[in-house]
């Protein structure tokens, strides 16, 4: 899931890929600027790929990795995930300084929503019939 927080090395690897674009494992190891085992970086790239943060393609006998989103797109998405998660947090309802139109924390029953929609449709028909504005 993209909303997962990134570890220190993952973030560093992402920085390298955002700065240099598509790279293979060797390129990333070289650009990280610190002694890290090839397999450590390969595992990290694979993990980022599984988190859907990277795309990859095979070139000769190695994978080339590239960021799925630009840094700005990713930060936007992360912030969007935070905002959505904020609404679903148990604290959101009472202990917040926000006035929400509808409490997102509730477990809304679809049957109830269908019933309410039916009532609204019926009221709308009634209003159209009576011409009330």
């Amino acid at each position: 899931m993209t909303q997962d927080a990134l570890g220190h090395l993952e973030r560093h690897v992402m920085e390298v890929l955002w700065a240099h674009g598509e790279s293979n494992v060797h390129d990333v190891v070289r650009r990280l600027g610190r002694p890290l085992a090839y397999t450590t970086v390969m595992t990290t790239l694979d993990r980022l790929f599984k988190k859907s943060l990277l795309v990859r393609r095979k070139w000769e006998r190695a994978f080339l990795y590239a960021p799925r989103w630009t840094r700005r797109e990713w930060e936007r998405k992360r912030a969007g995930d935070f905002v959505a998660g904020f609404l679903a947090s148990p604290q959101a309802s009472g202990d917040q300084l926000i006035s929400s139109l509808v409490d997102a924390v509730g477990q809304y029953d679809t049957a109830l929503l269908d019933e309410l929609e039916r009532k609204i449709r019926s009221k709308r028909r009634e209003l159209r019939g009576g011409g009330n504005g």
Partner: protein
Amino acid sequence: MPFLVRFLFVSLATYTLVHLALGMIVSLIARPAVHMGERIRPHLAARGLLALRLLPAVGAALSVAVVGVPSYLSNEPEAPTERVGYGCMIVALLGLGMWAVSIARGLRAAASFRSFSQHCGQAGRLAHLPGAPAPSYIVDSTAPLLALAGIVRPRLAISRGVLRVLTAEELAAALRHERAHRSAHDNLKRLCILSMPGILPLAAGTRTLERGWRKFAEWAADDRAVAGSERRSCALAAALVRVARIAADSPRFSLASSLLGDTDQLEARVDRLLRAAPPGPRIAGRSTLALGAALLMSGSLVVAILQPAALYSVHQVLERLEHFVE
């Protein structure tokens, strides 16, 4: 023990005891008060419940400031050999603890609001929606987000998901609802509620009043938004259901919650809006008169209490408290 230290302990202990006494009374009447609120106009019910919620803290502070402090200062000798009893110290520290818990709750809400605003700024773009009560962040998300956030410079946060599902008429009704929250200063009231000590931290009476206040504040905002128009009433009801539908369709936004009353609340609000368009709140005329009368009565009471004989009697009680479990 120095006079100032004794004075602080006695004042805090007095505050705590008056707070607890008022809190007990408020706790007992919390549930009936919420029921009674359903029979009067929602904005009046919200005001009444807010006053009850704040009464223990404000009433205790006023009692100490108006009665306790003058009585102690005018009758207590500056004897440095006098000590404060352990009982008095414990009660005073309990009062401090209650305030610490509440201030922490208020600060936590302020910090999470700050974080929410920053993320809204990153996730969306600031725009001016026609009819919105404040500059609006349009957030790139499918979340059921339509909320007024903040106190001094509130911002409206709305997701593209909500913008997509609402018709123009429904969106206008929803924005009027948020504007009503802004003009009622509901977020400031939320901050007051969060920062004021409850009857006791986590006491049921406090939670009942807070839930009741939130319900009537929503109803009052609904009333103000529809202002007696059946058409607007219907549009707001539809907006509520459409936004709730986003929450229902995505398990991520409808996490299991301890707030079991929520679906009842949604149903009650929609039914209320459809039954008959609720009229907007009337401009208060008699309330100025009532406020004047209350101020006059309180003033007379304060003058009566500040008589030397009355202050002396209060001091006798404070002396007992000061030497409680010495």
